């Protein structure tokens, strides 16, 4: 037993676990999909920005990574070890401009008039960051479709952002802006330092008034409705019901199609695929990953005991996978459409 323990210790010391983790590789694995291999942005905002990196402390970065941005796509990486977290941050720091220093986490509060700040916010910030600071609609930088702004404004009315950001960090962002993004210096745009302090006080006051999350919880993963008609009639009714709700039928096939030779396919599991390209386009503007829901699909199944069922995924359940508040409403809408179609088709 002692020998086994010693062996395990030796493995630990020699093995990859305690060797300093490779921050670049960890970044590549966990972050690059959204923020880009070189930090230039994608589904997430760009990180390799001089005005950003010279303004945020390591505490800001580690809190952002640990807690994510609830409801704003950026996931919470709760399971990374502290060592891994530090390695990722060191990797991000390699994008600092030459000769610059990592800022300290300066918690000196900014004193301002939040009420004045509120009016200034409505005038100068709301068009990008949303009327309540809930963030612009859409995510980060998207290259796959045209849009008005190259980078979507992050949520400020967000518990995790406010926990990570100090007043000083917010103030510096307003003073300097972020070169290379639509966020410009408000000093240059004519706000006074007092105005800026007032806006910071207002942004800080979001903490006292958290936004409702709107996330769907306690949903079943799938929807199922028993049909009162025969299998074939149910399939026909299903197509009719989808057409009646402005969907286009794009395909009808057996579930096993493409997996088995045609004559061997189970013909009692019939999929109807349907699409509404306007809905798809809107959902993909809000989140390029929304294709995970596509195409719309309801399956008609004849069970062993002869009962016929209509089955589908539950869009409200799946919306939880995205950590994107903007999808909650379209998913509720899609849920309503699915249930309506299945109920109509079951009669």
């Amino acid at each position, binding site marked *: *037993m*002692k020998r*086994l*323990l010693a062996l*395990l*210790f030796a493995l*630990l010391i020699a093995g990859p*676990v305690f060797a300093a983790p490779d921050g670049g590789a960890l970044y*590549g*694995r*966990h972050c*690059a*999909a*959204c923020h*880009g*291999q070189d930090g230039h942005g*994608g*589904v997430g905002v760009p990180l390799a920005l001089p005005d950003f990196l010279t303004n945020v402390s390591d505490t800001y970065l580690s809190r952002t990574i640990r807690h994510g941005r609830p409801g704003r796509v950026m996931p919470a*990486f*709760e*399971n*990374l070890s502290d060592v*891994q977290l530090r390695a990722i941050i060191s990797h991000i720091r390699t994008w600092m401009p030459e000769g610059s220093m990592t800022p300290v986490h300066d918690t000196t509060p900014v004193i301002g008039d939040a009420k004045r700040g509120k009016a200034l916010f409505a005038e100068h910030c709301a068009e990008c960051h949303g009327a309540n600071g809930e963030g612009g609609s859409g995510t980060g930088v*998207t*290259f*796959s*479709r*045209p849009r008005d702004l190259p980078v979507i404004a992050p949520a400020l009315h967000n518990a995790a952002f406010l926990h990570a950001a100090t007043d000083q960090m917010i103030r510096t962002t307003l003073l300097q802006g972020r070169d290379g993004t639509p966020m410009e210096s408000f000093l240059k745009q004519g706000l006074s330092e007092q105005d800026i302090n007032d806006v910071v006080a207002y942004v800080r006051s979001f903490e006292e008034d958290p936004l409702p999350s709107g996330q769907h919880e306690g949903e079943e*993963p*799938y929807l199922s409705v028993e049909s009162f008609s025969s299998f074939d009639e149910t399939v026909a009714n299903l197509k009719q019901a989808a057409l009646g709700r402005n969907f286009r039928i794009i395909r009808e096939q057996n*579930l*096993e*199609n*493409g*997996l088995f030779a045609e004559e061997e396919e*189970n013909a009692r*599991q019939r999929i109807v695929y349907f*699409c509404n*390209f*306007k809905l*798809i*386009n809107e959902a*993909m503007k809000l989140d*390029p*990953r929304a*294709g*995970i829901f*596509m*195409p719309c*699909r309801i*399956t008609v*199944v004849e*069970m062993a005991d002869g009962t016929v*069922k209509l*089955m*589908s*995924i539950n869009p409200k359940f*799946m919306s*939880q*996978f995205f950590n994107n508040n903007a999808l909650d409403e379209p998913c509720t809408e899609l849920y309503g459409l699915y249930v309506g179609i299945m109920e109509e088709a079951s009669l």
Partner: protein
Amino acid sequence: MNRYTAPLLLLLGLFSAGVANAQPLLMVRAQQSFPETMLALQGVISDHGYRVSRVQRVDVGLTASGYATDKYRIVFYGKPEQVRSLTAKYSQLIPYLPQKITIFAEEEETLVTTVDPAFFRKLVADPEAHVIFKQWRSDVESMLDELSEAE
């Protein structure tokens, strides 16, 4: 429990810490362009013993309807016998099978995303099925790793 059990468990805990990063969606960036990644994806799917059953070209439909978009496809795949027996045994899996992977262009690179198969455990409680889901998860992870490492 003898006096070594606790430290052993601790050590094993250390070994596995940080391995499982629970995110419901898995996503990787491939440094290659869309056509190359699409080919590579179909390759890794069959290398892992699955069959591609169909490719849905979402971008084609969108463009035809007048919406601007870059390449955006959905690849359906599965192991035929597994899909057959699982859907027969656990009908609640029907809406989710065959499995699918979403692939879309981002300028000269490509993003590949899918639901973590570990999610299927929420649909089926049977430990026998969990063995299969675990295999799926490890296959999907290794498929995505191969795509993100391709130069």
